[in-house]
């Protein structure tokens, strides 16, 4: 019981700090924190697969990107309505996720990873070349939809945008946390621990994996929508492999299988990027890559796992 | 020459060897008997450095070799002929032999010598020289496994169930090979299911039960009185 209440105290402390962030932080860091929340959501979505189901997706850029483009499509072609953008983005992400899930879950291990990678690159090529709809290389620019509920609407300020993002990320986190502790989540973890055994006790592993990919893809799409709304543009770069790679980095740095770890990983990554790019300019990935490799070799549980162990001792 | 001293070994969590001690003197054939699953093969693997002992020591030629890498042990003169033979399936017979032959200190003359010797022992292998390992029959694979071990010019061969699944005619041949090797001064630690064969070729016999050596006796004594054999191995 002490551990449980300790968890909630920590949860509300972090939530409070994040909620207060836009009131105390200067412009640059305010934006920075909002963005980390969005990337953290993306990383969290991928944790469902890496950390809980035990398969590495190298294709999360596709879900993220399709969420973005779906939202942009809704905003440009229909009405500049936030909820409409959400609906379109989620629909697009879900479609892609269903597609990827159907094929990739037939494969295991590295073949799963390569399959997700190949599919994400295919979607990249489609978006890059289908200029009439996607704007091709230049992407799409649009106006930010206002924050609206029926009968009330107001344009986003940096602070309200931050709170909007924070509440969506928090709700998604709580939902995912619940899912990982549900009977379904237990089956996913059983698959991670021992796939053949899970099959032998009567679970149709492939169907569980399909649902896991769908769920993960939907959350990644949600992150994409938030990013599009925050930045008012979409570009094919976000569908490119690099983004998927970064998502994997977030997970490994922060600690897989914890949901919070990947968010921490995203924060560390962007802080490292900020810090290191002073010395290494755009080549910051050289030291980041090295830190990443050291983490893989020496801290397989990631930063969060490491911190936890230190605290326990 | 080779000794295991109070060796404990685990496969993951499972405690397979609970303190095995045994000794093989130079040029001696020693049998290791016991029912299935008592840890005979694990004992050989532990000696060969394939399983790391949790406690205890392996001494070879007066030197503590516990924890020495397997390929170094092979170069020192320990050869292992595993139970399932483990012929390299897509290497030819000749290439299988080369895995042991291509090493420093083997000149042209010595190579020819060693090959000539195994082909004399196993004329069939000379015939099948260019055939892939996987196409050999069980008996031929067993011969190749022994021949391959001989390429290392070992001081001792750890021989794991050489007659398993072989026809009676082949069993006789294996027995002759063991005899010949002994005359050449090669020590053998023999794990076998066949008690008569073991008693016939060995000087001494150890009997294992549930991960420990329970009994040690000269083979002639056991041949004369099989009460011990019945007790530990009977059905």
């Amino acid at each position, binding site marked *: 019981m002490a551990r449980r209440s300790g968890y909630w105290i920590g949860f509300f402390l972090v939530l409070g700090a994040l909620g207060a962030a836009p009131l105390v932080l200067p412009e640059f860091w305010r934006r920075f924190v909002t963005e980390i929340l969005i990337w953290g959501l993306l990383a969290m979505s991928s944790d469902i697969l890496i950390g809980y189901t035990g398969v590495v997706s190298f294709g999360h850029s596709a879900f993220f990107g399709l969420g973005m483009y779906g939202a942009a499509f809704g905003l440009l072609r229909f009405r500049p309505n936030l909820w409409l953008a959400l609906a379109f983005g989620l629909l697009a992400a879900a479609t892609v996720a269903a597609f990827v899930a159907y094929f990739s879950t037939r494969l295991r*291990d590295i073949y799963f990873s390569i399959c997700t990678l190949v599919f994400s690159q295919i979607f990249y090529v489609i978006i890059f070349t289908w200029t009439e709809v996607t704007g091709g290389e230049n992407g799409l620019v649009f106006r930010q939809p206002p924050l609206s509920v029926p009968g009330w609407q107001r344009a986003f300020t940096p602070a309200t945008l931050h709170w909007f993002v924070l509440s969506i990320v928090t709700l998604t986190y709580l939902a995912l946390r619940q899912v990982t502790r549900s009977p379904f989540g237990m089956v996913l973890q059983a698959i991670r621990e021992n796939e053949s055994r899970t099959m032998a006790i009567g679970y149709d592993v492939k169907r569980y994996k399909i649902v896991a990919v769908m769920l993960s893809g939907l959350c990644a799409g949600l992150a994409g929508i938030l990013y599009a709304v925050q930045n008012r543009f979409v570009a094919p770069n976000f569908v490119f492999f690099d983004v998927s790679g970064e998502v994997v980095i977030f997970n490994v740095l922060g600690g897989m299988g914890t949901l919070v770890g990947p968010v921490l990983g995203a924060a560390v990554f962007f802080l490292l990027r900020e810090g290191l790019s002073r010395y290494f300019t755009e080549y910051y990935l*050289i030291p980041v*890559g090295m830190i990443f490799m050291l983490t893989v*070799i020496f801290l397989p549980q990631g930063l969060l796992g490491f911190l936890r162990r230190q605290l326990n001792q | 020459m080779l000794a295991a001293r109070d060796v404990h070994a685990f496969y993951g969590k499972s405690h397979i060897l609970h303190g095995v001690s045994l000794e093989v003197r130079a040029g001696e054939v020693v049998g290791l008997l016991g029912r299935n699953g008592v840890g005979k093969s694990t004992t050989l693997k532990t000696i060969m450095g394939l399983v790391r002992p949790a406690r205890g020591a392996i001494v070879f030629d007066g030197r503590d070799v516990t924890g020495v890498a397997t390929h170094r042990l092979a170069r020192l003169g320990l050869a292992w002929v595993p139970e399932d033979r483990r012929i390299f399936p897509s*290497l030819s017979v000749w*290439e299988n032999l080369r895995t042991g032959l291509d090493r420093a200190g083997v000149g042209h003359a010595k190579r020819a010598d060693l090959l000539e010797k195994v082909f004399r022992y196993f004329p069939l292998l000379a015939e099948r020289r260019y055939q892939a390992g996987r196409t050999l029959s069980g008996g031929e694979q067993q011969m190749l496994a022994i021949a391959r071990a001989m390429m290392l010019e070992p001081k001792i061969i750890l021989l794991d169930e050489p007659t398993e699944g072989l026809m009676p005619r082949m069993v006789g041949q294996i027995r002759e090979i063991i005899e010949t090797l002994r005359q050449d001064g090669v020590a053998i630690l023999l794990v076998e299911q066949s008690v008569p064969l073991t008693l016939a070729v060995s000087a001494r016999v150890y009997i294992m039960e549930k991960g420990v050596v329970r009994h040690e006796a000269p083979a002639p004594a056991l041949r004369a009185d099989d009460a011990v054999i019945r007790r530990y191995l009977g059905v």
Partner: protein
Amino acid sequence: MIQLLNGLVNGMILALVASGLTLIFGIMDVVNFAHGELYMLGAYVGTTVLAAGGSFWLALGVASVTIFCLGAAIQLVTLRPLLGRDPLATILATFGLSLVLQNYALWQYGPVARKIQEPFTGHFRIFQLEYPWYRIIIAVLSAAIMLALWLFLKRATWGIWIRATAQDRTMAAAMGIPVPLVHTAVFSLGGAMAAASGVLYGPLVGVDQTLGPGSWWSGGWATSAARCWRPSSSACSSRSRRSG
């Protein structure tokens, strides 16, 4: 016909890169995400040698040897400590490696594509079309390298050690084969082959850091495959680049 020739040339290069990759995967069970980066770095080392006044062939040799050594260092530092860990760990480690190498190349050589001058500029006529000799040469050379690899694996002591290790690691060790060293050698050899193909392919596609990012796995394969199927464009583009 031209299509067929182009397909053959591209196929040969791909086969060369792939044989290095599968060599590593087949023997060490390591999926090398940084293979594309080794290919790219090989090409860059080639341009450096050429810039220093070396010949194309010297560049090919130096690139292969350099990447061979780099491969050995990488294997010792990153992959050997991961022996016995989850395959996921090696995937992640080589992925991290690809980030480092890719950005190192960007830093060292800059974003502007470099060109490797082909050693032969002649053309020959085939069905009313000019076809560059160099393309034929690389196809032949790639085939020769693969043949050499095959002979090496078939005949040489190390070749037999590599094959034995691939088939049964434990038994190989029991036969006195230095298995850890074989693993290092295999990784280096795979890298050297990637580097050689990088230099050979350089004159056709130019050399920049996008040659080898992790996306090379899919993007590279997909575009290469697409090039094989629509080769007219690549033959034309390489000719127009020359004329331009």
